[in-house]
């Protein structure tokens, strides 16, 4: 009797948490969702169809602000870019891979004001190059998102140099 009560309480809690997570989307959830979309759009499966690639490119365009600033250690990769320029660059890199997966882990999100979100995360990219070489890339980055027309758009990305030679 007691056991069945405990089990039903656990199931009830799981259902409530599931409903809360799916029905009440707060800003943190929306920001995370943007990165999830970015991750799935950059990812590449072996033998990806051309139609799929085109759809993914459009999705990436929708994630960035009209002028998104990149600040990296490499001068040539720094500066303001349009969403089209960003997706072109991403796809130029992507074309060199047979398959590629990108994940954003350890994400922390702050909201300094209601229209701005500052996120810190680690980018984890692994894939196989066309020449057969395996590639692992880890980088910490800070990212600023702006709330524009009800969607959180990436407006600034700064890569963090954890180890300075």
């Amino acid at each position, binding site marked *: 009797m*007691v*056991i069945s009560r*405990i089990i039903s309480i656990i199931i009830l809690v799981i259902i409530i948490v599931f409903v809360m997570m799916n029905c009440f989307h707060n800003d943190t959830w929306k920001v995370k969702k943007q990165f999830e979309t970015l991750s799935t759009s950059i990812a590449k499966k072996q033998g990806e169809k051309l139609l799929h690639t085109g759809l993914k490119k459009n999705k990436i365009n929708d994630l960035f602000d009209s002028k998104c600033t990149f600040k990296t250690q490499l001068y040539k990769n720094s500066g303001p870019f349009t969403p089209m320029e960003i997706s072109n660059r991403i796809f130029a890199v992507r074309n060199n891979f047979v398959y590629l997966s990108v994940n954003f*882990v*350890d*994400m*922390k999100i702050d909201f300094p004001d209601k229209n701005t979100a500052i996120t*810190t*995360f*680690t980018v*984890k990219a692994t894939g196989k190059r066309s020449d057969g070489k395996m590639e*692992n890339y*880890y*980088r*910490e*980055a800070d990212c600023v998102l702006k709330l524009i027309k009800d969607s959180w758009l990436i407006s600034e990305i700064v890569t*963090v140099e*954890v*180890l*300075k*030679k």
Partner: protein
Amino acid sequence: MSLIKKFFLPKLEKKFFLRIIILVIAAYIIFGYIFIPVVIDGHSMDPTYKHGKINFCNHFYYSFFKPEKNDVVFIRLAGKNVMYLKRIVALSGETVEFCNGTLIVNGKKVDSNNSEKCNWTLKPRVVKIGNVYVIGDNRSTTMEKHVFGQVLANRIMGVPLW
């Protein structure tokens, strides 16, 4: 026989659920905060720590000791899911340089028994206050490809358990 049966098919009573809950909480605390499980991915610390091996990050080690030269440490990026595994070669205020593959700290040659030979050359630089200078043991790659340098000491997450 009854013991085996008891172990694999326990009675679903109050005590059993209590044990399960305690076990889950203990595992969460131990493996989430004290001994963080890690898989070594990469060859930066070859031959000391080889690619693919499993280890644990002893997170509380530096609650009792201070980071010292020659310690192998885990360094966090944004969090504990991705960490660098490197060796401390210099502490704050010390000068580090490489001269034709020889590591020189404060003007003295450092015997790199654990590390691979290399031909790196790096101009002298002073480790800033609150930082430590870390390098991987595998120096057989080019200097540009090897991730190393000075890092804030508060990014050190702990040491490998073995």
